[in-house]
């Protein structure tokens, strides 16, 4: 019997983590302030109370230490789920992630598995100070051995976190922090989710394909709505998985529309849009009516929050790119 309830992304992730912990006693959570406080975003709220301090571990303030000890726990048969408090604080752990977490299966010829999930609240738009609004996904997607996914809505959040934890590969799990408490969605926890590493058309259209993930999915959907008012039909794809990329639905769409706009909050230069543009051009060369256009943050550090909305891609900039694409 379907159990549907209206939940935020924050709540959905909390429920997903709880379910994963119930299903598998080897799942342990680690991070700063995730215990009594339930994390600064309350994603782990109540979990330490119910699963104890040995499974919901408040760690010393050291990200390399968190990820490095999680590697050891994974080697001992656990499935650690690490919370990085904010995107900008993942870098002290970068070495452990790219040199250890990413490579241990390869190095050991598969004798060791590395079933770790690294949860990172990412992106801007919450009026925060420096280092709290970064979009580091391209750096991880560039690293073989890691998988990288981004959820964009509560329903995906619930399922994807469980699927990521069940995966035997290390997964960088990106959560659009400005969506945590933004919208509620109907969650039916008896439904069958789509596989984790798949992209999905979230709005059908015929003129331009808009690729988005995480926080920009909402922007893209709004842009599609606005464009529809002007008689323009945008197809929106929520990429969901950034490494590996699931290009089949993208190519299928591009072959129909001939035009693509990619939007993300990360810097344009060497962001996901670059890779998507390169692959689409190679695969759909004769279908393209216009080059793949990219709408992202400018290639500057994240600015003071009072002008962050100028810095980040928004509905208008997506529509502007759509116009430019149609102009080719």
């Amino acid at each position: 019997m379907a159990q549907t309830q209206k939940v935020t992304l924050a709540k959905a992730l909390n429920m997903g983590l709880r379910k994963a912990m119930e299903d598998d006693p080897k799942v342990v959570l680690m991070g700063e302030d995730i215990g009594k406080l339930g994390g600064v975003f309350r994603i782990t709220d109540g979990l330490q109370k119910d699963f104890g301090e040995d499974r919901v571990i408040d760690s010393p303030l050291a990200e390399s230490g968190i990820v490095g000890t999680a590697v050891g726990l994974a080697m001992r048969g656990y499935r650690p789920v690490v919370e990085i408090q904010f995107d900008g604080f993942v870098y002290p752990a970068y070495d452990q992630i790219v040199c250890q977490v990413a490579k241990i299966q390869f190095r050991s010829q598969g004798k060791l598995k590395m079933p770790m999930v690294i949860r990172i609240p990412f992106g801007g738009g919450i009026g925060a100070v420096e280092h709290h609004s970064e979009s580091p996904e391209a750096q991880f997607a560039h690293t073989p051995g890691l998988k990288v996914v981004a959820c964009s809505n509560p329903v995906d959040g619930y399922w994807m976190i469980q699927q990521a934890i069940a995966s035997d590969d290390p997964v960088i799990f990106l959560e659009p922090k400005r969506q945590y408490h933004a919208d509620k969605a109907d969650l039916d926890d008896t439904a069958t989710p789509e596989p984790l590493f798949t992209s999905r058309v979230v709005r059908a259209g015929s003129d331009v394909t808009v690729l988005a993930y995480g926080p920009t999915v909402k922007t893209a959907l709004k842009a599609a709505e606005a464009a529809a008012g002007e008689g323009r039909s945008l197809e929106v794809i929520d990429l969901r998985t950034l490494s590996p990329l699931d290009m089949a639905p993208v190519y299928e769409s591009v072959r129909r529309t001939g035009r693509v706009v990619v939007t993300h909050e990360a810097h344009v230069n060497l962001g996901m849009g670059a890779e998507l543009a390169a692959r689409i051009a190679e695969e759909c060369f004769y279908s393209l009516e216009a080059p793949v256009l990219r709408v992202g943050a400018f290639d500057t550090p994240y600015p003071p929050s009072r002008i962050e909305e100028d810095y980040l891609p928004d509905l208008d900039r997506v529509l502007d790119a759509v116009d430019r694409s149609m102009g080719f």
Partner: protein
Amino acid sequence: MTQRSSEVGAGDGFGPDLAEVFGPSQQDGGPELVQLLTPEGERVDHPGFRFDTEERAEDEVIRGFYRDMVLTRRIDVEATALQRHGELGIWAQLLGQEAAQVGAGRALRPQDFVFPTYREHGVAWCRGVDPLDLLGLFRGVDQGGWDPDDKNFGLYTIVIGAQTLHATGYAMGMQRDGVVGTGDPDRDAAVIAHFGDGASSQGDVNEAFVFAASYNAPVVFFCQNNQWAISEPFERQSRIPLYQRALGFGFPGVRVDGNDVLATYAVTQAALQRAREGQGPTFVEAYTYRMGAHTTTDDPTRYRLSDDLERWKLKDPIARVEAYLRRNGLADDDFFGAVQAEADDLGVRLREGCRALPDPSPLSIFDHVYAELTEELEVQRDGFAAYLESFEGVR
């Protein structure tokens, strides 16, 4: 499941019982706590440190501390209120840490250099940084408005611990500049690096200890152990008093009552002097308490008991100086009234000034990414300018 041994170092082959060597960590800071002014406002002696105001009149200096602390607290209170009114995005409160910061800040000489965290409002005050410049960062109009080289006070650093390495490198620069150990008090300089108890766990901070010890750099590591790193109690980071960390790296550490401005001043002064003279780094643990929330977005009732807070209220850093000044007739109601009035004026200035802080222009996004604008960024800026113009009159 997770075992804890009650004793560290069993007195077997692994050497003396560490608890004996170091003394137990006690709730009130333990017997090793350096104190010169009791919570009740009485002066006490300490065999290692004394309150030395050098040429200046002692009473005057202490009244100055009082004023600094009251004004610092007012900055904090106003900023907290401004955040509640939506004028700041967030604010990191220092309530309860005024003595630690003013004691440390006033021990500095002009030529010394400070590397703060995001909570050093009291030190900033002592360095002459306009509090309005502090608000800019938290309002989101800039990322630190003052000139570090003008105030010898670095920008706030948010990535925990990163600045301790900068401080060490800066101190290495002072060595190379020949301003350490010359014997000239106006020339010899040192660096102070601020950080918290939580930060002590970061690799960077421990690497700073390694480098500072290896090069004998003139840097004072000033840790405000305010007992909390957001929701995590100090015990998560270390099971022994923090100042002892330094001993393992080969330089001295000392724990001072961080709610005692005289003791903090005296200990920091001595540590800075060691550094200036070329005797190398020192670790100062200012034992204090974060009376407020971690920041204005934090809710400490989720993780700590109010008992603790009540106990620490009795150790208020300002109240004890007031008690001392009054009891000894070193300041009268006029003085206290004047400081109060000054605080009120400051409050008004901050409230009005904060609201008047201009938003940066959208195009400033492209400024100072590099020493000169690159062609790439020029194209992006021009494109964005044209884009913005296209909306003129539209929205």
